[in-house]
């Protein structure tokens, strides 16, 4: 009895310390973004006080740069990518796991390769393709690339979940005269909502954080994302730490909102009851 409590306590301590470790850099970013430049360098670990408090970083970011554009770019890219990935991914997963057609297995293998081979290996051909399509410096280019990047794993995970939905449910619906589309949207989708939320979080984070593709496909001012926008404050000789930290702090907010949205789906899905 005692031993059990101890081990549970130890597990919690371990997890807590890991959480602290993981959150520490974010905490540093947060507190330092509200300090004067001098205070940042003097004592980076200190909490902002009345003397050291300053909003100069936010002022620079919001008022004296095009950060609003970068922000809306990042949000549009992430949200559209998420929507496309989840919708197309779920439909493809349903098709691959439900319908037996020629090339079914081959298609699955092809997608598995997509999981194993990093999309960045194809950067050069992707760049060529985007140039030929006249899509450089557009959000469309990034959305297309990110959707392609996220689809294989999404399909793989979702088809596992769809495979676990009892066959009887689909057949009962078919006997009820429900069309295949309705079966997908009104039975399958609600039942895999927790999985969709999980995949949503997994998809969202790398897309939001990516620097590589914005850099090579859309470095232009009007298609710039937040991660790329931050770079303008990081110079070869001087770095405007106030602005960098402030923009990073701001960049946390949208992901946070999306995360809260998805995690609520996750919990609702888990508590919505057994299948049987």
């Amino acid at each position, binding site marked *: 009895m005692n031993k059990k409590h101890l081990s549970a306590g130890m597990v919690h301590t371990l997890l807590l310390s890991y959480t602290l470790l993981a959150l520490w850099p974010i905490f540093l970013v947060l507190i330092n973004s509200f300090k004067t430049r001098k205070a940042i360098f003097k004592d980076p670990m200190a909490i902002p006080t009345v003397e050291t408090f300053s909003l100069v970083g936010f002022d620079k970011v919001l008022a004296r740069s095009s950060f609003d554009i970068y922000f809306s770019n990042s949000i549009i890219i992430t949200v559209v990518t998420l929507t496309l990935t989840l919708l197309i991914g779920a439909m493809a997963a349903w098709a691959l796991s439900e319908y037996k057609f020629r090339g079914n297995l081959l298609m699955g293998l092809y997608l598995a390769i997509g999981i194993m081979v990093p999309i960045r290996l194809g950067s050069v051909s992707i760049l060529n393709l985007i140039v030929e399509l006249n899509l450089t410096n557009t959000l469309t280019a990034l959305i297309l690339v990110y959707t392609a990047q996220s689809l294989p794993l999404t399909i793989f995970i979702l088809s596992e979940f769809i495979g676990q939905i*009892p066959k*009887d*449910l689909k*057949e*009962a*619906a*078919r*006997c*009820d*005269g*429900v*069309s295949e589309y*309705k079966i997908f949207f*009104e*039975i399958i989708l*609600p*039942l895999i909502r927790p999985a969709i939320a999980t995949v949503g979080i997994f998809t969202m984070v790398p897309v939001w954080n990516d620097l590589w593709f914005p850099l090579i496909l859309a470095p232009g001012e009007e298609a710039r994302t937040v991660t790329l926008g931050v770079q303008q404050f990081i110079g070869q000789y001087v770095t405007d730490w106030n602005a960098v930290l402030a923009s990073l702090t701001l960049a946390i907010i949208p992901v946070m909102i999306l995360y809260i949205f998805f995690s609520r789906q996750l919990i609702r899905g888990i508590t*919505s*009851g*057994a*299948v*049987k």
Partner: protein
Amino acid sequence: MSEIKLDKVHKSFGSVEVLHGVNIDIKDGEFVVFVGPSGCGKSTLLRLIAGLEPITSGDMYIGEKWVNDLSPVDRGIAMVFQSYALYPHMTVYKNMAFGLKMGNQGKAEIEKRVRNAAEILQLTPLLARKPSQLSGGQRQRVAIGRAIVRDPEVFLFDEPLSNLDAALRVQTRLEIAKLHQELKNTVVYVTHDQVEAMTLADKIVVLHDGNVEQIGSPLDLYNHPANLFVAGFIGSPKMNFFEGRITSIGKGQAAVKLADGKETVVPVEGAHLGVGGKLTLGIRPEHLELEVSSGGPVVGGHVDVVERLGDVSYLYVRANGDAPFIASLPGTSDVQPGTEISLGTDPIHVHVFNENGNAITNARNPAL
């Protein structure tokens, strides 16, 4: 009208054939039960009728329509699944209304039908609940309700009672029987439980390894099993079999030497039999009696166990020369375990099967 006709229906999964040419005629309004051991192809046959699986070869008609290529909806069937298959994220009401909405019914009409079905099945207080908040029996009723609201020509049930406990099973069985008397739809019902089959069916189809062994009314199958398989499958406890060899053939009878060396005379038409041929005698436990009379076969042995159920007692007897057998005696008999016993039966009750396991007509009572 919704009679169903299956004509030489074959079904293969890949290279494995699981149904080998099934012919069945089901009349309008009939309650038909497919019964057979697990894995014999009952569910597959039901799913073929439902249209959930394509037929490999053969023809199927529902109400004079050739339905081989029709989808489940167009066949006018409703199916109740063994797992209930309720939509877990919908309330009881929505579960029942879902199929109707797809059929473009008016809202008022849907409401009326769902309320009506809920009333019949005593589900009205549960309409707002989710399936996870229901007991097994309630889920079962919702599954049936979902079929009723669609007012189908044909109800298909796949082992609907197998997930219920014993008491609930009996109760639900009665409800299904009552429901059929009220609605008078054609019902095809699959079960591996011969008691369910006997109690519910107008007509039983006994399946074995993808073949139809026999089709008939419950009493037909009980009194005239066409072969050893049906004889052993229908009836509880199951029929006892005693092997023997023909020693002589007379007019309308044959003498048989049983494994314990005793000779007995069975009333059969001897035309196709030869001396020395192998026969199997089948005697139901309930037809064995302590008073040996009227020249029928006598079997004996050592009583191993006596199970007293009150109205009857089951005797498990280790036979002298043959396989063990069971006798069902009235509860008043006071046979003790460990004693030697001798039991007999009237020749009328003896089923005789030839070498191939097929029944030979009992000459004393062909119309038994």
